[in-house]
């Protein structure tokens, strides 16, 4: 019995360390495949030039500003060009319809002059993301995002239990990778999460 227990424990630990998703294998594979398809199509459909027009110059300039007497200085000056925002958001919503389950497609963009930082620029109605900490204006770039931005390759991430995200590059007309999309879903939807 002791041996069986040790084997089970070892195998479980190996799975946990490898970050193998905790979904049922079939569901996981299907979900990953569909989200990969969404992300692949998204890479073609999302216009990087328009994405670059979304966050205003003022918002960029003040994103890292702080004032001890003005706690919300950066957030209060966050602004976007609504025409560009709406155009890209509509594309992202339509992309999410390609999945046969509830999914979101979010837009992330690096911040010029701040290597290692990234900002979520557009979220969608299921309020899902593996990487956004609720309320933050920008955050640290995870290594997989850096990989996408540098190589232009898609990356699938399943490290968070129940979650699948596929990151895919967004190009502009110069052929540069200017951002990335996150096609995301989770096996067990939480209907109340982020309703706040």
């Amino acid at each position, binding site marked *: 019995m002791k041996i069986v227990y040790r084997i089970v424990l070892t195998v479980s630990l190996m799975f946990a360390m490898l970050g193998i998703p905790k979904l049922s294998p079939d569901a996981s594979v299907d979900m990953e495949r569909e989200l990969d398809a969404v992300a692949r199509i998204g890479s073609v459909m999302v216009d990087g030039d328009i994405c670059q027009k979304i966050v205003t110059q003022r918002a960029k300039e003040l994103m890292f500003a702080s004032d001890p007497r003005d706690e919300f200085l950066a957030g209060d000056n966050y602004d976007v060009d609504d025409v560009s925002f709406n155009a890209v958001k509509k594309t992202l919503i*339509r992309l999410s319809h390609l999945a046969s389950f509830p999914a979101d497609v979010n837009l992330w963009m690096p911040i010029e002059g701040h290597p290692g930082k990234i900002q*979520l620029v557009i979220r*969608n109605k299921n309020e899902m993301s593996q990487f956004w900490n609720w309320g933050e204006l920008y955050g640290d770039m995870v290594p997989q995002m850096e990989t996408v931005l540098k190589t232009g390759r898609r990356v699938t991430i399943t490290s968070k239990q129940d979650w699948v995200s596929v990151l895919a590059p967004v190009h502009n007309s110069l052929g540069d990778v200017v951002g990335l999309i996150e096609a995301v879903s989770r096996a067990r939807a939480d209907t*109340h999460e982020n309703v706040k």
Partner: protein
Amino acid sequence: MIRQFFERIGLEGALMKQAPFLLLLLMVISGQSLLAADLEALPEFLRSDPFGTIVASDRGSADLASSLYGAQHRVMLTGCRGGYASFQVVVKIRPAGLYTLDVTIPDPSNKVQIDLFREWFHFTDSDKHYYPDALIPVRATYSSRLPEPDNRIQQQTAQAFWVDVYIAPDTRPGVLPGRARLKASGKITTLPIQLTVLGCIIPAEDVVTIDHNSYGSSWLAQQFAGSYQRNSDHWFEGDQFLELIHTYHRVFYEHRGIFHQLGYGHSGKVGPEFAPVLEGSGRAKHIVSWSLYDRHYGPLFDGTAFSTCRRGPRPIPFVYLPINPEWPASYEFWDEPGYETEFVNVVSEMERHFREKGWTHTNFEVFFNHKKRYKGFPWDGDEVRFPKDLKYFLEYGRLLKKALPPDTPVHFIFRADVSWNMEQQFKILNGIVRLWCCGGGILSFYRYAPKMLCDRRDLVWYYGGPPSVTESSSAITEFPLRAWLWGVNGYVHWLTVSPGEDPWFHFDGGQTALVYSGERFGLTEPIPSIRLKIQRNCLQDLALLDGLKGRKPLDSLRAEAARSYNNSTLDDWWNPRPALADLPSDQWLGSAIEDAASHTRHALRHPAASAWYNVHQYALSLQAEAK
């Protein structure tokens, strides 16, 4: 140690030989005094700590302690009918031991009723002190021991209780005797009580609406984790969950307040219990089920959720609708015919459903809470800073008008929470937005605004947050008082159900909570706080004061209340219009707003614990005059 003691009292030498005997005698004598049990009454505004000392923030008003006592050490209470008179009793026992407390004011007609609450002493990490706030309902006869086992305070020698004396509107005026009695340490201590019921009746309607806001429902599963874990798969659709929501409405209603729960997130995700179920797209989009929505809201809209309340059943006066840029119309179609069709068709269905149900006493709020910094939408629904965002409000105003029959008896109301840009919004959104929820600091620049808005029949609230328990007991009364002095219709505590991760032993002060989960005390409902009780009693007084405006000019009532409160004038409650008010709102700086509000901040800072006591006495004195 013993030798030093005898030397100090001059019994060294021969008597030292008798030391063992004397020591025994001393222990008996001191034991007698240490076994003391005492019962003390305190006014509602003086909070005790677990060692029997008034908390520091109330101590400056400690002379109020004697105000409660009449001749022969009798607790003298006076109250109007249709409301509550409150005080506290403090049990003091040294050393630890068992005790029984009972508080009674016998009334054969049962019109006068006593609610007794044990006060929980919260340890606040910020200043490492204990403050009482959460109120645990207990029976009128309560037996326990000190230190109170669940509060886990070493060396605790005092336990405070909040006493609410409810006086029904049809109570016969007169005097009723009662008593608080403590059994402890083998003796009985009695504190006589005398309740004088005045002829005046506190108006049932409040002069200011006090709203207690919240977001979503996931916090309920956290705060009632035991209940949730027993049925986690279906808890959010179950009767127990919906009943729990109703208990939150009830606790605020019984304390003369209202409760709001916003049902959607910043990107438009709607919690299932906050909206009917939709199906289809474009022309085909429609409501397919009202089931969960009606189970949630039906008893609130027809008032039956309040049938057991002392204030009687009454439909809730306000509710958020789930309408947001992503519901009921999909944002995918924004600015296209499909968006208008989806919005108008579904909102029309909602109006029809509410009308057919007879839900015509509630204001259904169309309210946009999202901010662009949360990345869901490209415009600010809440606290517009950039004037270009107002075009979205105009469009929703148009859509709403198209969706609703002009003669509908259902009250849809467009609400906007405004700060930076409020002055421009008052103009541009005139006739569209009818409920203005204004940032208090910025509204204080525009003294003309409440009257202007009320004259055109708009409703005006302002918002802020509850004071910390570390502030004086009267701090909570500043908000309703300000609303009344300003002539606005209400005040919103922006968050009132979030007491932090460990309110019981590592409290953050409660600036986002006025109620607590009762689950750790075996209750399936929230429990109130001292601050909520003091706020309720303040609202009673404001209703009484305002009720006298037929006899005295309203401005004179307000001026005297302000003077009684903190020796302020009505001017002190406003700030001069600053130069920045004439700049476009997107050029304002947060620090400049703070500077511009410095006059009120200095004039009104830190109301003493006695501040509301003085207003209460003023209100009662006017009742005596009126009689």
